[in-house]
C-alpha cells in the first residue's frame, strides 16, 4: 500500500513538464547584442533582460554564428519564457588588441578624477595609462598614438605646469608648446604616419550654458588655427593660410599616406556665443610635403561642397580609413563640439567618388561623436550617448571594406550593469596595437607637488638614465 502511495506521489510530482511558453521575438536584452558582428577572440558578450528578469542563456556556435537562446523568468514567476534564439556573427577580420580612452565625469567646468585608460578587448581588463593624480588633478586629454603604436604617445596635461607630454618608450618629456615658435597652445593632435610631425589645432575654447533642456552646454572656439610640430628639430610652425582670424581651423587629421592634411574650417562669426547657431565647419584638405614639412597652400580645398540635407551641417573629427578610401566624420547642426549635440551623427564620405551619406546603421537618436579606425580598417570604435543621453559609451562596428558597417555593439563588460553604474564618460577612443605601459610614475615626476609661487613654464624631461629633471 505504502509503495503504491509513493509511486502515486512520484507520478503526481514528476508529471509531464508543462510546455515552456515560447516567444517568437528576440529577447529584450541590454545591451542590445541581437545580430551584431564581433571579432573572433572578443571578450564574451554579457547582457541582462531589460526588465530585470532572471535569465538562462544557452549558447551554440554554428559556423561563424553564435546563437544565444535565452529563457527568462519574471520576478516571482515559476514559468519562464523561451525567446527566439538570436545570432551574433563572428568576423575573422582581426581587431587591434587594445582601446585607449579617457574616463571623465561628463561634467561642466571641473572634475575630480580623470585618467587615460586602456581596455584589452579579449577580456574585461581595464588598466590606467596615466591619471590626473600625476599632474595634481589637472586635466589629461587628447591622447594619440602614431599609427596605434603603444610605445609612443602624446597627451596634454593641463593645469599649473602643464603642457604636452611626449612619451617614446621610457623617454617622457613635457613641452609647453606655448613657449615655442608661434607661441600657441596645442590641442586635437594628429600624428603624421611617419612619426616625424604632429599637427595640432590651437584653439581658444570657451563654454556657455543655456536654459534649453535639449542642449544645456555649448563648447565653442573664439579663434582656432593649425600648427605643425617637427619632432626631429623641435620646431613649431604656423602656416599663415591656416592661421587667419577670419577662418577658424580645427580637427586636423592626416591621410594614411601622410600627403594630405584634412581639417575643419569655419568662417568666424560674431558675437560669440550668441551667434553660435551660425557657426558651420566645412571639411577641408591641403597637400603636405613630408620631405620639407610644408603645406602646399595652392592645394587648399573644400572637399564637400553640398549635402542633400535640409540644413547646413557642421563637420568635425574627419578620420580617414587606413586604405585611404573612406572618411568618417561627425555632422551636427552647428558649432564645433558635437558631444553636446543630440542630433550629432556619424557620416561617411567615399573619397574615391565623393559620395556622402549618414551612417544610419551606426547612428541613434542620441549623440554619436568621436570615432577611430582600427589599423586594418576592418573595425571602428565610436562614442555614443544612446544609453542615457548623458554618459558616453563605446561602440564597435565591423566595416566590410566597401563603406558598409555592421550593427555596432557596446563594449562588453563583465557585468552589464557596469554600463549603468559607471559615473564616468568614455572620451576619445583610439585603437592601439599593443599594451601601453603604465606611465603614471614617470609623468608624476614631471609635475612636482603643488607649491606656491611655482614657476611652471620650462620644458622638462625625465629619462630613465638620469632620473633627474632636465630643463630644456
Amino acid at each position, binding site marked *: 500500500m505504502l509503495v503504491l502511495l509513493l509511486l502515486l506521489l512520484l507520478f503526481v510530482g514528476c508529471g509531464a513538464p508543462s510546455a515552456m511558453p515560447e516567444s517568437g521575438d528576440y529577447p529584450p536584452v541590454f545591451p542590445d547584442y541581437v545580430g551584431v558582428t564581433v571579432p573572433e577572440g572578443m571578450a564574451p558578450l554579457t547582457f541582462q533582460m531589460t526588465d530585470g528578469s532572471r535569465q538562462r542563456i544557452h549558447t551554440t556556435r554554428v559556423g561563424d554564428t553564435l546563437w544565444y537562446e535565452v529563457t527568462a523568468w519574471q520576478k516571482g514567476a515559476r514559468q519562464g519564457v523561451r525567446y527566439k534564439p538570436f545570432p551574433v556573427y563572428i568576423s575573422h577580420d582581426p581587431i587591434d588588441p587594445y582601446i585607449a580612452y579617457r574616463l571623465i565625469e561628463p561634467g*561642466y567646468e571641473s572634475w*575630480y*578624477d580623470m585618467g587615460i585608460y586602456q581596455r584589452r578587448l579579449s577580456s574585461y581588463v581595464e588598466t590606467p595609462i596615466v591619471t590626473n593624480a600625476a599632474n595634481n588633478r589637472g586635466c589629461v586629454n587628447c591622447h594619440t598614438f602614431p599609427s596605434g603604436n603603444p610605445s609612443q604617445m602624446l597627451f596634454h596635461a593641463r593645469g599649473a605646469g602643464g603642457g604636452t607630454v611626449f612619451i617614446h618608450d621610457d623617454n617622457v618629456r613635457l613641452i609647453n608648446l606655448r613657449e615655442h615658435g608661434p607661441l600657441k597652445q596645442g590641442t586635437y593632435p594628429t600624428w603624421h604616419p611617419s612619426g616625424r610631425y604632429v599637427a595640432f589645432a590651437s584653439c581658444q575654447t570657451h563654454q556657455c550654458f543655456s*536654459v534649453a533642456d535639449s542642449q544645456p552646454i555649448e563648447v565653442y572656439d573664439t579663434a582656432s588655427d593649425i600648427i605643425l610640430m617637427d619632432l626631429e628639430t623641435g620646431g613649431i610652425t604656423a602656416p599663415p593660410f591656416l592661421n587667419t582670424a577670419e577662418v577658424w581651423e580645427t580637427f586636423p587629421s592626416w591621410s594614411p599616406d601622410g600627403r594630405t592634411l584634412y581639417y575643419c574650417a569655419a568662417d568666424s562669426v560674431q558675437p560669440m556665443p550668441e551667434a553660435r547657431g551660425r557657426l558651420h565647419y566645412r571639411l577641408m584638405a591641403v597637400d603636405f610635403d613630408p620631405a620639407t614639412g610644408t603645406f602646399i597652400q595652392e592645394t587648399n580645398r573644400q572637399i564637400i561642397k553640398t549635402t542633400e540635407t535640409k540644413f547646413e551641417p557642421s563637420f568635425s573629427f574627419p578620420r580617414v580609413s587606413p586604405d585611404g578610401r573612406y572618411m568618417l566624420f561627425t555632422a551636427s547642426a552647428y558649432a564645433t563640439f558635437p558631444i553636446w*549635440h543630440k542630433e550629432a551623427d556619424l557620416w561617411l564620405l567615399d573619397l574615391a567618388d565623393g559620395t556622402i551619406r549618414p551612417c544610419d546603421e551606426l547612428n541613434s537618436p542620441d549623440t554619436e561623436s568621436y570615432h577611430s579606425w582600427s589599423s586594418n580598417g576592418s573595425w571602428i570604435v565610436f562614442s555614443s550617448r*544612446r544609453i542615457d543621453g548623458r554618459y558616453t559609451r563605446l561602440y564597435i562596428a565591423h566595416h566590410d571594406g566597401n563603406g558598409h558597417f555592421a550593427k555596432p555593439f557596446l563594449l562588453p563588460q563583465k557585468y552589464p550593469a557596469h554600463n*549603468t553604474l559607471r559615473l564616468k564618460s568614455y572620451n576619445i577612443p583610439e585603437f592601439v596595437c599593443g599594451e601601453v605601459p603604465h606611465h603614471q610614475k614617470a609623468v608624476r615626476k614631471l609635475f612636482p607637488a603643488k607649491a606656491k609661487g611655482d614657476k611652471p613654464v620650462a620644458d622638462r624631461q625625465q629619462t630613465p638614465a638620469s632620473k633627474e629633471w632636465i630643463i630644456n
Partner: protein
Amino acid sequence: MRHKRFLFAFATFAIIVLACQLCIPYTLMQQESYALFLTTSDYLRETFAAPWPMAHLAGNFLLQFFHFPWAGPLILGLLGAMAYLLLSLFFRQKGILPFSLTFTILLLSAVIVMASSHRVREVERYSAVEYAASRHDWPRVLRRATPEATRDDRQLLPYALLALTESGQLPDRMMRYPVRTVDDFCPESWSDRRGLAFKACLYECMGIPGEAIHNTFQAATALPHGSSFGTLRALVRLNRLKGDERLAHKYATILSHSTLHKGWGKDIPLNEAPEQSASDRLSAILNSSQAPLITPTYYYNVTSLIAHGAYSKTLADRSLCGLLLQGDLVRFRQMYALFPHAEGEPVPALYRDALSSVSHLPATP
C-alpha cells in the same frame, strides 16, 4: 571595577549623544549628504587607490546612517564609549578611576568648547538652513536666517532672500534684511561647494533644472569620488523634474547600491530614449541656439529670462526688487507696468513707495 568601567562608558555615551544632538544635529545630518558608500566596482577601485581605504570605507559606511536625526549622535556616542572601554583596558594597571576621571574631564572640556564656539554655532546654523532649503521648507529657513542672524553671518542672506521670494514675502520683508546689492541674492563669487549647492537650490526654484544640475555637478567635483548621496539624490530629483527619466533611473540605480537606498529606482520607469524624428531633434537643437544663456551673474539671468518672455510671480519680484536695489526707479515703473497684476491684489508697500516716488516723472515708452 568592571561595574565602574561600564558606568563611565555609559556616561561617555550619554555625554556625547546629548552634546551632539543639542549642539550640532544638522551639521551631523548634513555629513551624510556629502558622503558616499557604494558597492560598485568603480567606487571600490577608487577607494582602494587612495590612502587608508579601510578607514575610508568604514567611515563612509557609518556616515550613511547620519541621514536620520539622532543616528549621528548615537553612532558617535557608541564610538566614544567603545574608545573609552578600549583605553580603559589599556590603562587598567594604572587604576580605572584616575584614567576615567581624566577621560571625563577631557570629554567635558571638548563639549564645553564645542558648545561655546561661535564657529561651531555658525556652521550648525548654516547647516540647518541648508538642510531646510534643500527640502524647500521656507518657514524653517526664515526662522533660522532672521535679519539679526544674517547681519551676524552674511552667508545666510542668500538663503533668507530665496526663502522670502519663494514664500511671496520678498517685497514686504526684504528691507528688514541687510541687503546691499543684487549680488546678495546669489553672490557671483560663491564658487565653493556650499556656494554651488546654494546656486543649485536657487535655479531649481527658478524653474531651470538644467542649471540646477550644472551646479549640483560642479559642487560634487569638490567631493571624493566626485559624487555623494546628496548629489545623487538631487540628480534623481532634478532629472525627473526635467522629464529625463533615463538619467533619473541611472542615478537611482547607482544609489540602490548603497545600504539605505535599496529600493531606489524601482518606481522610475526605464524608458527608451523618447521617440523623436531627426527633424524634431534638429529643430530642438536649432531652437536651443536661440535660448537664453545662463551666466554666473544672477541678475543678468533674471532679466534675460524675462526678456525671453518667461514670467512668474517670483521672477517678477526678483526683477522688481533687483531694480529697486540698483536704484533704477524709472525702469522699475516700466517693468511693474509690464507684469500682470491680479485684480484687488494689494500692492506691497515697497512697490507703492517706489511708484509714488517716480509718479511725478513723465512716462517713457
